[in-house]
């Protein structure tokens, strides 16, 4: 038994140092491409740590969004940056070229960081070793929430208002990217046979995984964000293999799908207000069906929004006006 505990400790320490090392590589590796790859590995290691910390819902979100989609966004931006910086004034990204004066200027921030880190360490170590947080409140209200996965209950019911705003943040990011990105070239990749076959094989699987995550989210790890992210990944694969949205759907239909999650949220919130008198108060008997509807629509919107964020440039319909 003791040997097992020791093994776990060693495992934890290795994971922790591995994480710090990958972060260091992502931030200070001389080769930017290697940095981004390290960042993606960092996200995957992070997902393992979430599992180790009994946070499987977070692990799924991290793997799909944190490592997967964020990594894809960085790689795409890196690819688009390449021609620009070659044409430019020959950017001196290489830190080796930095003057000694600049090297000296690094010591001051480094010292300040050490000071901040030690202060924060003292602050965290001063916390009591035991605390329940809101566990008992969540547990005792779980039956009224409509789902049995406590994380889903918090996200969609107890703190559903946060989640509404969060979906709006995601949509807003897309509006901002479309507003800025009209002139940024989109990726015109030539899909090789490998990618083509891969996407044919993977996309249906991803859609099924997404549906599964959505379904189990009510009682097991999973939920709208994880399912949406997997759906988004399927969309990214489709885009990479040269798939294009049917032009007739680029206008209002696409915008409707993108906003459907937020709209459903608002509509259900108003309906609950009419029925129970309180904004976003789900009647316990109907809570599970309402949450399921919400999550289904939100998954679709999140997935399409994430894929659209990856593409970056707005559809031609938006560009025109």
């Amino acid at each position, binding site marked *: 038994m003791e040997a097992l505990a020791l093994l776990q400790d060693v495992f934890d320490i290795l994971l922790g140092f591995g994480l710090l090392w990958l972060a260091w590589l992502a931030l200070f590796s001389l080769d930017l491409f290697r940095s981004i790859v390290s960042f993606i590995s960092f996200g995957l290691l992070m997902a393992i740590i979430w599992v180790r910390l009994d946070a499987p819902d977070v692990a799924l979100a991290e793997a799909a969004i944190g490592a997967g989609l964020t990594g894809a966004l960085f790689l795409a931006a890196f690819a688009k940056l390449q021609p620009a910086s070659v044409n430019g004034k020959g950017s001196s990204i290489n830190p080796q070229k930095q003057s000694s004066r600049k090297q000296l200027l690094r010591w001051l921030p480094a010292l300040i960081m050490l000071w901040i880190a030690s202060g924060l360490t003292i602050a965290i170590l001063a916390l009591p070793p035991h605390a329940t947080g809101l566990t008992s409140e969540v547990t005792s209200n779980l039956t009224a929430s409509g789902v049995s996965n406590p994380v889903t209950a918090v996200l969609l019911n107890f703190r559903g208002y946060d989640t509404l705003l969060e979906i*709006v943040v995601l949509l807003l990011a897309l509006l901002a990217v479309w507003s800025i990105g009209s002139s940024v070239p989109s990726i015109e990749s030539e899909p090789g046979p490998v990618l083509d076959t891969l996407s044919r094989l993977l996309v249906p699987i991803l859609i099924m995984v997404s549906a599964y995550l959505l379904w189990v989210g009510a009682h097991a790890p999973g939920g709208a964000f994880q399912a949406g992210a997997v759906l988004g990944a399927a969309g990214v694969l489709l885009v990479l293999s040269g798939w294009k949205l049917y032009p007739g759907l680029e206008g209002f239909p696409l915008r409707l799908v993108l906003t459907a999650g937020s709209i459903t949220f608002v509509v259900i919130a108003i309906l609950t207000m009419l029925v129970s008198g309180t904004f976003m108060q789900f009647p316990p008997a109907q809570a599970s069906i309402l949450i399921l509807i919400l999550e289904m629509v939100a998954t679709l919107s999140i997935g399409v929004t994430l894929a659209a964020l990856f593409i970056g440039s707005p559809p031609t319909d938006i560009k025109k006006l």
Partner: protein
Amino acid sequence: MGITFIDFPWAIALILLPLTGGLSCFLWPSVSKILGLVTVIGVMLSATGLGWLVIDKGVYHYLVGGWGAPLGIELYVDGLSLLMLMVTALVALGVSIYSIHYFELSYQRRFWPLWLFLLTALNALFLSADIFNLYVTLELMGLAAVALATLTGSHDAFTAAMRYLLATLLGSLAFLFGVVLLYHSFGSLDIAVLSERFESNITAWAAFGLISAGLVLKTALFPMHFWLPPAHANAPAPVSAVLSALVVKASFYILLRLWLEIFSQLDTDVDILFGFLGSIAIIWGSLQALRQTRIKLLVAYSTVAQVGYLFLAFPLAEKVGVTAWSAAVYLILSHALAKSAMFLAAGNLLRFGGHDRIADLDRVAQRLPITVAAFALAGVSIMGLPPSGGFISKWLLLQSALVQSQWGLVGVMLIGGVLAAAYIFKVLGRAFTQAPLPHEPGVVPATMEWAALLLAGGAILLGFFASEILAIIEIGSPFGAGEVKL
């Protein structure tokens, strides 16, 4: 049905209206102007309704989802948040009227959804009583503000907005770190619950440091102001107006709220540091404003200086709490109206002359009298001359300093006033003269001129309703017991 008109959930309308409006503008971009205007008028009515409710019945609580703290999220409206919501609605109305003719068609469809989401974030922020919910609204506000700041599309705007984005993201992260420490120390995210459970310990100190640092960066207190002038000066005029009038105030509002409700129990000298940095901000920001050759940069640096005044309330509040805090709130209100008017007027001058170089202003007083009047009236409030909201706030601040014989702060305020007069007259002085190079004037639509005058008039009117507004501030006594003597 038992539900009377006054009990209508105005607070929820303040969140859902701009949210729905933003979604609709995105769905039907060709009618976004009308949808936007209708939404903003609805927000104005809801803010009035909420004001009626709060003035009539006192502090307003709302349990979102019916759960209540600590499990759920609560909304809370006292006099302080009510005034923030009302000034937000008023500035939003002025800015929206202005924007109808300001943006070209292709920019209208980009502007309205982003702007209405920003308005959603502002309203949600002022209503929230939950620190994690505040974090989400801060992020929504920050991203919307940055996206709006890029709308001019110029190289300078993108560079400035990039700095702004990094500053706002860093500020949010520091704030979130503080939220994490508070949650794990005291087991709640609700401000009232935290206020009860709070005790001074090392973790609480760290949370205080992180939250203050993050919010001070977002509020652009000297020396963390570096991102503000370029971002505010290079944004389109209505966006500059909103950024200076409301967005900077939102982070200050959170700082003020948490300082009063939670961190007041810490025995700290940070208030003196805030007062010191605020003093430097006043002098340095005013001097920089005086040095500028472009109107929009001048107005942006003036914001740096006026933010400094807000922080003077912290050291002054130790002895005369209610007066000093009321002065700060009054300054938030009057500066919001005056500065938005000033940026809108600057936008008119830019549209008229095709540039905003102060030296090349060409007889604008004769040719754009309404705009110049708006600029001048707003200037009266910024300088702190009577009768104006700016006068009341600076008078209250000065009074708090005099009572405590804080001669240093008195001096700073007086010098700041003189410098403000200098930079305002630097612009106004050129308004009457002929430029060396005459140019073809651009057409400035009347709505753009009147929108600026409406807001400037509001800043002046604030000077006439001091006792009423001070009575509203007192609802729910956010600043503890006490009385403001005018």
